[in-house]
């Protein structure tokens, strides 16, 4: 089959590899009908996530048709159309039973590696480095899905791939980011980053009853998309974001702030240069510009919800501000399995049509071009969907 393989920093290639086979009784094989490039794939592409290895197959947002099931998978049959969540979760462990699927204790075969880096191991993730399992990803013609009796959700209506594909990651991720803000009616929510996750965070915050959403970015097409979703926008290339947020909230600050940027934020001025130097010297691997700003901007007693991906160690986090002003930090890899059903219902009821975020359709063969375009944000690219 064809698969998108990682070979190093800014080096992905579509290559012929063997077809996946069932390895465990609870596995299924899915023929991929649509797969997307995620903003977090860019962290892999740019070489910021450790423990990637040459030949790793990328991709954790995908859907398709079940073509083979293991003998312990009873809820799926060949021919079922499914969307697969990016976290791999067993459904049986302490954490899965609590609905914290991305903390599954059993799905990461390389748990020892993650324990060294992070203290304890989260779940395994498709195509997202060996630290989280080294599982082959879904930017391919076929993919093996472990614990297929727990993760995949069947799509049995006439919805298109573009409408349901993002249940695999970015819609639940944006939604969990908004839910973590514990929104009360009339709350003001500020969202850093209007990429795909930011877009879903904006719309989810509106769905959850926010009074006002203020979206921050510097790409005009992304800001326009945010406005379509009901947000007011701030272009950080043109305005002083912290000062503007203060003024827009009577000096108090937003009730909650969402960091939908993550480790590769664009830094400015001295602090930006400081981060660049520390990154180059490998003294830190995360560049938490957006996070710092979100913490400082948040109102006293407010919540900072972090949806953006961080990999290791971030520097100069204003912890004094968090402590002295009673800020709550909420974060985590998304417990996608928990959100798929309710969010599918919202799509079916017409409350949201996730296909709004798609700007480009490519064939799988064009994955290298897609990665390049998405990384440089060329051609007003927000979200790329590929078909094998």
């Amino acid at each position: 089959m064809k698969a998108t393989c990682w070979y190093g920093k800014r080096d992905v290639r579509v290559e012929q590899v063997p077809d996946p086979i069932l390895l465990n009784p609870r596995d299924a094989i899915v023929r991929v009908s649509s797969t997307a490039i995620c903003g977090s794939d860019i962290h892999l592409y740019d070489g910021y996530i450790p423990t990637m290895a040459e030949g790793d197959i990328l991709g954790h947002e995908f859907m398709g048709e079940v073509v083979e099931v293991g003998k312990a998978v009873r809820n799926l049959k060949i021919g079922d159309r499914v969307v697969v969540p990016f976290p791999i979760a067993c459904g049986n462990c302490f954490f899965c039973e609590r609905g914290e699927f991305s903390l599954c204790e059993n799905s990461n075969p390389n748990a020892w590696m993650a324990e060294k880096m992070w203290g304890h191991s989260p779940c395994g993730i498709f195509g997202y480095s060996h630290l989280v399992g080294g599982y082959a990803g879904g930017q391919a013609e076929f993919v093996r899905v472990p614990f297929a009796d727990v993760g995949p959700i069947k799509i049995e209506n006439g919805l298109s791939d573009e409408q349901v594909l993002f249940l695999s990651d970015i819609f639940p991720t944006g939604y969990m980011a908004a839910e973590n803000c514990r929104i009360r009616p009339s709350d003001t929510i500020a969202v850093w980053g209007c990429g795909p996750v930011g877009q879903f965070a904006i719309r989810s915050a509106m769905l959850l009853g926010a009074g006002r959403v203020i979206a921050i970015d510097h790409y005009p097409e992304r800001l326009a998309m945010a406005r379509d979703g009901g947000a007011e926008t701030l272009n950080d290339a043109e305005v002083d974001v912290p000062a503007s947020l203060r003024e827009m909230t009577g000096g108090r600050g937003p009730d909650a702030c969402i960091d939908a940027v993550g480790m590769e934020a664009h830094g400015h001025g001295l602090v930006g240069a400081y981060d660049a130097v520390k990154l180059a010297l490998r003294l830190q691997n995360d560049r938490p510009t957006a996070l710092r700003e979100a913490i400082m901007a948040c109102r006293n007693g407010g919540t900072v919800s972090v949806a953006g991906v961080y990999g290791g160690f971030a520097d100069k986090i204003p912890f004094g501000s968090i402590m002295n002003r009673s800020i709550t930090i909420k974060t985590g890899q998304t417990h996608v399995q928990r959100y798929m059903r309710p969010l599918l219902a919202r799509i079916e009821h017409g409350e949201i049509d996730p296909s709004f975020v798609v700007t480009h359709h490519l064939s799988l063969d064009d994955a290298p071009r897609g990665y390049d375009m998405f990384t440089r944000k060329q051609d007003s690219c927000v979200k790329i969907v590929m078909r094998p």
Partner: protein
Amino acid sequence: MMMYPADAAHPHERGPLRDAQSPPQPSIAREGGNPPQSRIRPIPRVRGSERLASALGWFSVGLGIAELAAPKTLSRSIGLRNRTGLIRLFGAREVASGLAILMHPDRSVGVKARLAGDALDLALLLAALRDTPASRRPRVAGATAAVLGVAALDALCAHRLERDARALPLAIRRDGTVRVEKTVAVNRAPTECYAMWRSLANLPRFMKHLESVTQTDPTRSHWVARGPGGLRVEWDAEITRDEPNQLLAWRSLEGSEIENAGAVRFLSSLSGRGSIVAVVMQYKPPAGALGVTLARLFGGEPQQHIEEDLRRFRQIMETGEVPTTEGQPAGRRGVMYRMLRKRDSLSLRNGEPR
């Protein structure tokens, strides 16, 4: 600060492998009114003594090389004359005890060798102090003081190593006996965990080094394992204690190639829904301490083995399978992949019995 019963003694103090019979409960102390988790001992900090030992090891090697290479300069600087042969000899001794500290699985062997060496050094220096003309005496006295200082460090280090070895979850004794302890939380009742373990034939499903375990009569069983370098070893074992749903202990029969013993305690977790499974295992590889060194070189650390074994135990208990990526497709692999998979060679495919 958590307290633990004083009688949570260590097998070291109770003779060799026999301990496993009266179950080896180093970190699993006795029954009591406390919640189960509090019966598991905290692990002491030991990095200090390990670090001190390896510093002494390197110091020994460095000093030894200096003594071997420049005995004349050295002997003059400490006020001695015509002792180059002796100094060379002492240099060889220093290097040997340094290497012993750095390479022997039981660091205290080398540290004690250093202590003995310190005594020799002191004897030589004191003798010299008597025979040396007054003009050079301050130098000899200085050297004596330096040796006394290092000897104090050696003594401190030996004492700490001994103390830590008694409390560590992994201990390797002078005779090569390895003891490892580890606990794992399992989201299944103690009865289920016990049942899985009591059918000894299940053990190879999660214990990587085992090929098969066959029950030969109600208490006896035949074990086949793969040692370092694919070496096959077999032995017979008997169950020495069997308290259904609570405790299982076994040990190899007299005359086995690899003397070994183990015990598992099945505690119910605080929530009452799951278990804490606490394992103690001891084994004595055929070639003693050398065997341990070889095993480490070829098969990784004993601590890692049991950690991965117990992880697989939990995976099988909770999910019915062992998650794996062994056999999945990939593009052309390079160096990075081989580096990352080093410890993975410990992992079983599918968790199916072979």
